[in-house]
């Protein structure tokens, strides 16, 4: 007589035991969490990349800010850049403003498509 014979009745009972009925919405929940799950807006590696750049930028900013006479040097450098770019002239600033404004308005224009869509 084997152990299997000893437990024959119990085995029969186990085999006849019905499985638990899953709740009605379980399949839908699983499908929503898997195949119908929307792609994440940002991938993990993108988050890491942006985080690294932000960290580097913060570190550089801290280095610059903690340098001796940082405020004065910043103002001085800004003034020199403004002079070099000609931005100390009101006329230049006005024309740059007009250019940016025109570019923005042109980007907002829409044109009808030249191709007609044939509807069958």
């Amino acid at each position, binding site marked *: 007589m084997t*152990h299997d014979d000893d*437990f024959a009745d*119990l085995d029969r*009972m*186990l*085999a*006849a*035991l*019905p*499985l*638990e*009925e*899953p*709740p009605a919405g*379980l*399949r839908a*929940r*699983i*499908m929503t*969490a*898997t*195949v*119908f799950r929307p792609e994440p807006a940002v991938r993990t590696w993108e988050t890491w990349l942006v985080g690294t750049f932000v960290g580097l930028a913060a570190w550089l900013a801290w280095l610059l800010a903690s340098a001796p006479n940082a405020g004065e040097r910043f103002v001085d450098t800004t003034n020199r850049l403004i002079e070099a770019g000609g931005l100390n002239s009101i006329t230049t600033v006005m024309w740059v403003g007009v250019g940016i404004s025109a570019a923005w308005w042109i980007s907002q224009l829409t044109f009808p498509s030249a191709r007609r869509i044939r509807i*069958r």
Partner: protein
Amino acid sequence: MVAALAVDPPLTAPVVDDQALIAATLAGRTEAFGELVTRYERAVYHLAVRTLRDRTEAEDAAQEAFFRAYRALATFRPGAKFSTWIFTICYRACCDRLAKRKRLSGDELPDRADPSAGPEALAERSDDAVRLHAAIDALPEKYRAVVTLYHLQGKQYEEIAAVLNLPLGTVKTHLFRAKEQLRKALSP
């Protein structure tokens, strides 16, 4: 010119094996994974209910198991059994939850309130099934898992050992002791 829709051939074969469904899922056919869910949802949920003894938590564990399986589907070893794989994932998810419970309560909670096992639900089942379910639930966790997988997978001890990550001999010993305890609990 109207472009013809590229329609995949339907999965109409009466029995499509799990490997084919996995390949179809990896190829982007959502209905193939749906078929896998349909096939194993009940068994996975059953394993979770018996392991956790809590239907709400079991529902979450079953969902988590399918989610983990879906994400790792590309790593599924061809030739392996999907049932063994999904049961393994489900059992691990349940063990994680049991460990969390132990951390929170200091010990495994003996039983949880089971809202769906009310008098009406119990009346629908036969007496034997009710008594057997109660006896299985009263088993220690390690025996309960072996008996539940024995119920789900039949006498495939190697599969049970793979799911529980236990040596074959230990599985047989646990099963023998579990059956002894069940027989004792069911004897009048």
